[in-house]
């Protein structure tokens, strides 16, 4: 159902003889026929949904977090506290700007969306 972008680039012609001539964008056919995939069209196997919970108070020091109720929710795979998020800048979770002190925890909830494409 989803056609990845390289499918539209299959006919790519790199021999530069188009300079000075009108040309078409290489992805335009997918755009006008609605076949171009966008970020939320991708449903990978084992995809999980994540919900971030942030501190309700600015500059508050977190002493403890009670995650017991979240853990009991059906489908919850893992609860990830802010202190377990690596501070490497190349990690997606770091880009969400979770610090050790200022952000409480990150609950990774939901069951994988397998076959049926669910809207968010």
């Amino acid at each position, binding site marked *: *159902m*989803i056609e990845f972008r390289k499918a539209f680039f299959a006919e790519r012609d790199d021999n530069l003889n188009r300079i000075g001539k*009108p040309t*078409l*964008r290489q*992805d*335009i*056919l*997918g*755009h*006008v*026929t*609605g*076949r*171009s*995939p*966008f970020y*939320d*069209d991708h449903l990978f196997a084992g995809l999980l949904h994540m919900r971030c919970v942030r501190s309700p108070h600015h500059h508050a020091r977190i002493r403890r977090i009670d995650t017991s109720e979240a853990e009991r929710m059906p489908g919850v795979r893992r609860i990830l506290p802010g202190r377990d998020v690596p501070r490497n800048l190349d990690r997606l979770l770091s880009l969400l700007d979770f610090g050790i002190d200022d952000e409480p925890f990150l609950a990774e909830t939901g069951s994988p969306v397998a076959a*049926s*494409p*669910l*809207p*968010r």
Partner: protein
Amino acid sequence: MACKPVSSTLNGSERDGFVRDGENLFDMLRRGGDLSPGYGCGQGGCGAFTVLVDGAPVLACLMLAEAVAGRRVETAAGLAGATLHPLQEAFMAGFSARCGYGTPGMLTAASALIDRTPRPTREQVVEAIGGNLRRCTGYQPVIAAILAAAEGRVRA
């Protein structure tokens, strides 16, 4: 959750399916695998999910799925038949899509206009796509493409 059987026509083919209570047309189309229109704001503000119901442009994110029972739904994926729709040709030639996210909504809105008004004025074009927000392409190439498609169109 209660489900209700709903039969409608999607892009020319009959579809029998179930909709959940309160499900909107957007969710129904996505579940059916039509990914052509994009999800924008979900509140009817952006027009990215403009589809045609019985030929009239509607915002699928605001329309209840069961309201299309027995009606004809068309999305941008259904514009092209054996060949591309003239609007699609014009959008391609006119560089009228950049990221392409809002393009299907623009195309459906424009096709409704051209079906109703084969030779629209520039003002009519602007009004017809007035509900479609674009963040990257800008509006001028889109307006130019719609006018070009209308002028080159031969009504059968």
